[in-house]
């Protein structure tokens, strides 16, 4: 990734440019010591003087905020300008100063709107940090004068905490009273600038010790840069949180979120006092000490899928390279390219007003979609569909460019939707609720809710839908919660059953589903784990470990991140930015293929050839799920599960097919399905017995009462059970019935024996 820098020549400030900000994606506002507020239009290439500030106002910091009022189109923009004379000014869109407030003694060094726009903070040379209401009324004195100037401060994403600098220290202070703040020594020199990413929660800081450092939201160091020649004067996160820019004297650097540098440019600009990203994250502007405005856009963004590679080579051009045939196609667009996504044999290029869908087989004729709003922040692709996340809506398209739906739910706010909080699977969309972080909304492609949202016990950090499977029932949702535990949940359910959720692993840093199969890979602690058949969790928890393969991840270094899992290859990015490909056994894919086409013979042959326990375990569970008795028996025998083999042999002896099927579902852990099969085939006695055997007493009694048979049998077994436990009966229902029905042990035993005989006769 590179920065392409240019300096607009059509106008110039006559003094230092100290603050810049983006008005929209094509307009930059800048302000400097010459008291001019200028507006630069990048498309038409002209600039305009918005207003001239009073002579005593030397702006130091500058933050614009646009908020929607009522309707969609109406926005009110307000600029917050802080100045060296200890005041801050609220400036309207037209450039009129609406309010000037005396805020600090000495210069006001920083001013920022909160993310929700309800309040603003200012920090001054006197060491105070103050929170003001929207109209400029003092709300609270967050930090009282320590005498150390607050050079920089930043809101947290939820507007409940403030991060500020205090000499060589960084402090995170919650705004709720009497709460303890987190303070740590961050640099060896004075900290001049700090920025807090609202997507990943990471913090960057830079100061006079000529380093920039990356921290997580608890103050744990992630990265510390090399020594620069001069102090770091400006920092800014990109809106998507995957990049940040660092400015210093004659230096601008573009870095990845883990700290390593993408590129370094040395323009002759003097110090960069302020860096601002455009909302689409493709351009940035910076104010320079040599009176110039620096504009840069990012080129060289790269996407990869299978044999194809897409690369933005300019503002309006993309080159697609086919590695196998060594051919490449240059795609030119009439507008700026904002987003690029390549997956599932399709390339989607989003420009400012249109989206182009290319099939990888033909790059000459794209399908063009006109965007509804023209500000796409994210693109998700699945096998058949794509989702565009725009400023106020989600849209689902198919690859022919037809709009299928625009899913909505109550708390949806796409402007702040975190990319790791939404996922697209085959025919399914899942997203973490933005109002309640413990909820996951699950919708199908047409925008309909599927069985209500998934409720978890604590905050969900990352979600992912599986891409494989034949039917909707095979789709699984994986999510990582705040404690970094990985959970798996079913998405679609049979009509009577409930969704099932279970924990798969803990301390999971990142996870990824395979692009075509239901295999999940995760970075767990210091190893890479592959679960060959995560569904096993709902079948036999004991065997989960058997189907998992653990690889040592020491070669991937510290904090590796899973980037992709396509076919047999896992792409892992190390903390230094190197991408390492790791191979996965191809046999798993083959086995999944055979299982989905009921090719059990081939599957057996494959397992015999490979002789891998994990594969055998997968096969055993797959066969049990598909109710293929012979294969399951062989597979269980191969992994020494004698109890299962014996049980299967017991099943085989039973002559009635329905019973066999029911028993197989029991073996597969589907008690409800087994019961349903039995009831449908009129074997009420069996259904009751299976419930008794699984200690599902209430259900057994319910069936018995409903069909008016064997009530005494249930009661008899329950009594025996309670006697064995040496406890009195506590269930009201049983107590009540016990009083009405009398039980004769002999008679019950006889009845049961008679039932079994009758069954035999029937067959």
């Amino acid at each position, binding site marked *: 990734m590179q920065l392409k820098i240019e300096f607009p020549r059509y106008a110039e400030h006559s003094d*230092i440019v100290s603050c810049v900000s983006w008005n929209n994606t094509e307009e930059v506002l800048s302000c400097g010591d010459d008291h001019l507020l200028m507006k630069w239009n990048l498309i038409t290439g002209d600039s305009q003087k918005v207003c001239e500030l009073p002579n005593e106002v030397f702006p*130091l910091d500058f933050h614009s905020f646009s908020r929607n009022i009522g309707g969609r189109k109406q926005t009110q923009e307000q600029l917050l300008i802080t100045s060296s004379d200890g005041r801050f000014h609220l400036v309207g869109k037209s450039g009129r100063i609406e309010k000037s407030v005396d805020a600090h003694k000495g210069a006001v060094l920083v001013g920022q709107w909160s993310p929700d726009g309800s309040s603003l903070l200012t920090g001054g040379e006197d060491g105070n940090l103050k929170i003001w209401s929207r109209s400029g009324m003092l709300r609270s004195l967050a930090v009282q004068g320590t005498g150390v100037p607050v050079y920089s401060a930043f809101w947290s994403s939820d507007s409940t905490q403030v991060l500020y600098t205090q000499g060589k220290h960084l402090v995170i202070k919650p705004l709720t009273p009497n709460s303890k703040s987190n303070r740590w020594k961050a640099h060896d*020199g*004075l900290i001049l600038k700090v920025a807090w990413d609202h997507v990943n929660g990471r913090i960057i800081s830079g100061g*006079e010790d000529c380093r920039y450092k990356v921290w997580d939201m608890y103050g744990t160091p992630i990265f510390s840069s090399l020594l620069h020649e*001069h102090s770091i004067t400006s920092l800014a996160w990109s809106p998507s949180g995957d990049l940040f820019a660092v400015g210093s004297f004659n230096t601008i650097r573009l870095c990845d979120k883990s700290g390593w540098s993408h590129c370094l440019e040395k323009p002759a600009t*003097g110090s960069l006092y302020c860096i601002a990203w455009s909302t689409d994250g493709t351009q940035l502007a910076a104010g320079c000490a040599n009176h110039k405005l620096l504009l840069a856009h990012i080129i060289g963004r790269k996407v990869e899928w299978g044999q194809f590679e897409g690369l933005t080579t300019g503002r309006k051009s993309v080159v697609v390279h086919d590695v196998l045939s060594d051919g490449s196609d240059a795609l030119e667009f009439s507008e700026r390219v904002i987003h690029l996504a390549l997956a599932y044999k399709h390339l989607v290029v989003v420009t400012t007003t249109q989206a182009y869908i290319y099939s990888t087989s*033909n790059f000459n004729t794209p399908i063009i979609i006109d965007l509804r709003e023209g500000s796409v922040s994210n693109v998700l692709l699945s096998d058949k569909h794509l989702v565009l996340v725009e400023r106020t809506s989600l849209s689902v398209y198919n690859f022919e460019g037809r709009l299928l739906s625009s899913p909505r739910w109550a708390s949806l706010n796409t402007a702040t939707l975190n990319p790791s909080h939404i996922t697209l699977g085959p025919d399914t969309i899942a997203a973490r609720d933005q109002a309640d972080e413990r909820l996951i909304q699950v919708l199908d492609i047409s925008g309909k809710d599927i069985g209500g949202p998934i409720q978890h016990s604590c905050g969900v950090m990352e979600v992912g839908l599986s891409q494989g499977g034949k039917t909707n029932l095979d789709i699984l949702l994986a999510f990582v919660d705040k404690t970094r535990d990985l959970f798996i949940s079913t998405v679609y359910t049979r009509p009577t059953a409930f969704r099932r959720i279970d924990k798969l692993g803990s301390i999971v840093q990142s996870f990824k589903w395979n692009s075509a199969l239901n295999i999940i890979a995760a970075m767990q602690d210091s190893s890479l784990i592959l679960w060959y058949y995560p569904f096993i969790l709902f079948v036999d928890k004991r065997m989960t470990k058997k189907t998992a393969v653990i690889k040592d991840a020491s070669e991937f270094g510290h904090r590796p991140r899973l980037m992709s899992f396509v076919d047999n290859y896992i792409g892992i990015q190390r903390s230094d930015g190197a991408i390492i490909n790791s191979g996965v056994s191809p046999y798993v894919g083959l086995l999944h293929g055979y299982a989905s086409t009921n090719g059990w013979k081939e599957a057996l042959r494959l397992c015999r050839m490979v002789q891998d326990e994990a594969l055998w375990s997968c096969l055993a569970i797959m066969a049990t799920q598909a109710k293929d008795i012979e294969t399951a028996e062989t597979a269980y025998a191969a992994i020494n599960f004698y109890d299962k083999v014996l049980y299967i042999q017991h099943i085989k002896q039973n002559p009635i097919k329905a019973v066999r099927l029911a028993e197989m579902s029991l073996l597969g852990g589907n008690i409800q399905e087994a019961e349903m099969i039995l009831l449908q085939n009129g074997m009420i006695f069996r259904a009751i017995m299976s419930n008794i055997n699984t200690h599902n007493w209430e259900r057994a009694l319910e069936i018995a009462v409903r069909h008016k048979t064997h009530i005494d049998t249930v009661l008899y077994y329950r009594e025996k059970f309670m006697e064995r436990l040496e406890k009195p009966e506590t269930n009201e229902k049983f107590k009540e019935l016990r009083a009405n029905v009398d039980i004769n042990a002999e008679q019950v035993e006889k009845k049961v024996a008679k039932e079994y005989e009758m069954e035999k006769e029937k067959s």
Partner: protein
Amino acid sequence: MSYRDLRNFTEMIRSLGFVRLVSMENFRTPNFNLVADILIWLIKRFDPEANIHEEYTSEQDRVLLVRSAAEFMALRANLILNTKRLYQADGFSVKELLKIATLLYQAQQANIDDEQNLNRPATDMIDINSHIEELKLSRELATQVTTKGASIYESLGKEVELKEERYQSVSNFLELNKVEKALKETNFATKQNIESTKGFIENVAATENSLDSKIEKKKSELERNQKRLQTLKKVRPAFLEEFEKLEVDLQMLYKDYINKTRCLCYLEQVQEENAIAEQERMFKRQRETRKMMEELQLEDARKLMEDDESLDVLADNVPQKAVGRLRTATAARARLATGRKKVYGGMNADDDSNSLDSDSEFFLDDVDGEDSSILGSNDDLKGIASESKSDQSDDDF
């Protein structure tokens, strides 16, 4: 002291290239060492030869330093510094230092702008290649120096002759007006020339540009068309499948046809051969029948001759002998009777001459005619001819 002054000052010091990094916090507490360092450095930047007191260990030294610096700036740059503030060495001294720094910074900025405008590419590319070019240039220059030297030497040699001419021309009286006019004219002409050339040059650049853009456009067009061609090539037109199927059918049919023609040819050839063989066989039979006929005639003739033996034997004897020698084996029986040989020879000669003729019937008729003239017994011969005719008709089929 203000934040802005500090910020601007650090920036200027940085861009002027001060050896150490200056922090924003350095001036919060009095720090004379730093202020003195910066002051001395700034003045040295201003004039490396400047004569100021460079020590600041004792109080006296410090006062001296501040005073000499202020004096120097007042004299050289017309800048009045507040010595009291400087001596304070805190935030207020920054304001004073800023005055000097601003002066230098502005000068540098102006300089940089000029440089950027003038020779940006030259400063951008500093590497070994440019030096290589310099080497080449210097070599060229060296050769030029020698050639120039040689030419100078030559012209100096001519000096002796030219001296006289020069003196002569100098001594000539020149009319000033005329000279001025001529000069003006030539001046004007050259100016016009220059302007027209300039115009040409500009035009060349413009046309070059337009041509370049045209080439670019054509190239992109070509590329697009090629792409389109490729896609078109990929597309199969309608009926192509049917066409291919028919082509295969046709191929089959053609093969069939070739096969049949070959068979036909072969059969025709066989037929021809058969016809030839047939003809030969026919000839053979004809010959045999003729032979038989002759024999019959001979028989008849012998019978006749037996009747007229006494008359003709002597007359025919000599020629009959010569022929008889040639045909010894064939006419074994004829040797027995001398009279028979004579007749045979005469007939044989006739037969040879006629055998060239292919028409057998005609030949037979001829034989008839001749024979009749020779033999003179028409009745018998006719009977034989009719017989042979019937034979022939049998053989034909």
